[in-house]
């Protein structure tokens, strides 16, 4: 047995208080037959390993490559997402908002944390933070600057506050340097923040 791991011995083996409370609640719910723990595992697996921003990125890359698909994605969003198997929970009513040289779109939920789960996955911590929820509607230009995005004063900003069950997905402008690339290459340019409006498409990091 190890004797010399004093650092490990020093910290408590008990889980953090919220972790214990979750465990207690789950134990009660499972014992009472209200929750199937395997269903909880399956839900987590979907959002941890299957549903994420790569789905949205694939849609944007296809829209950049195929004008007919783009028209469907913008005008018949729920129909096309359902056909492709990308509809569902927290994305039942998706509206695609397109960035143009005249207009930049930014999405927020000031009242809670509404977000298009089936195409972007679960929202990142900053999207749910008090700071983002408070400031995005009032000072979007300063907020965007903190994400490294500078919007020229003459380019209008539209901030979409997701107060109903409509979920907004930003269709970013295709960067000029990416023209001519195929769909799978283009998808690597589309990061999650570009589809929320707090980022712009970027060349993929060199590997």
């Amino acid at each position, binding site marked *: 047995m190890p004797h010399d791991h004093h650092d490990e011995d020093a910290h408590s083996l008990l*889980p*953090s208080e*919220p*972790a214990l*409370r*979750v*465990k*207690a*609640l*789950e*134990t*009660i*719910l499972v*014992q*009472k*037959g*209200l*929750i*199937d723990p*395997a269903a909880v595992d399956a*839900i*987590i697996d*979907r*959002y*941890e390993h299957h549903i994420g921003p790569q789905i949205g990125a694939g849609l944007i890359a296809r829209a950049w490559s195929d004008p007919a698909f783009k028209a469907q994605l913008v005008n018949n969003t729920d129909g096309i997402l359902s056909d492709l198997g990308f509809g*569902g*929970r927290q994305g*039942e*009513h998706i509206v695609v908002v397109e960035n143009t040289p005249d207009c930049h779109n930014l999405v*927020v939920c*000031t*009242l*809670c*944390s509404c977000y298009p789960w089936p195409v972007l996955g*679960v929202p990142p*911590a*900053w999207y749910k*933070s*008090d700071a983002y*929820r*408070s*400031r995005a*509607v*009032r000072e*979007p230009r300063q907020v965007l600057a903190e*994400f490294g995005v500078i919007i020229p004063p*003459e380019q*209008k*900003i*539209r*901030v*979409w*506050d997701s*107060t*109903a*069950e*409509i979920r907004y997905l930003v269709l970013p402008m295709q960067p000029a340097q990416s023209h001519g690339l195929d769909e799978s290459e283009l998808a690597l340019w589309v*990061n999650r*923040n570009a589809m929320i409006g*707090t980022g712009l498409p970027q060349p993929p990091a060199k590997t």
Partner: protein
Amino acid sequence: MTGCKMKPHHDMGGDPAGPIMPDKPDDPIFAKPWHKRVLGLTVAGGAMGAWSIDTSRFWRENLPKADYQSFSYYEKWLAALTNLFVAKGFVTREEIINGLPSGPKQPLHAAALGADRVLAMLAAGAKASRPEIAKPLFQEGQKVRTRLPDATKRQMPGHTRLPHYAADKIGVILFYHGHHVLPNSNAHFLGECPEPLYSVEFSSADLWPDGHAGDVVIVDCWQSYLEPLT
């Protein structure tokens, strides 16, 4: 009635706040293992059909102010979910206080979400749209005035999706989305009461003293949140 005019703590659009902390590309989806457990329990609990997403939202925002402000995101979900299970009679206060179920192991409840139903449940979602039962009162392009949030509530304390920063303001109807379930009613088990839902565009300069000219904020508003401009 002064208490009713207080802006609730969850309605924070426009409040002063500190810097935003963007994440890094390789940050995990769930910062802590218990976060994912709360998400899974919340989604599975909701799938029982004993309450709607509107009710869940109301119970989260109705947590005491000190808890709402000090709890992390998933702690709010956990606290509201626990309270809902007790309020709906599925679990007793004693069981929660003791951290233990009071009786022997029960078979899976008829309404409980089995693992075999998860994929279909997530893929189906729960549409909020309903058949159009009346023509919408407002047309796209029409100017409207928003009411006060408390004036849209069906009970006190109550639920509304009209934020204070967009209350008693003049905006323009941008889109009509058809009829949608009204959260103000549905959150309190008072019926779905579907209403026309609109995206309403407000000029930032009308909302904020320091709003950038030309910028706009769009808020989705049910018809009962709006009055015609006379």
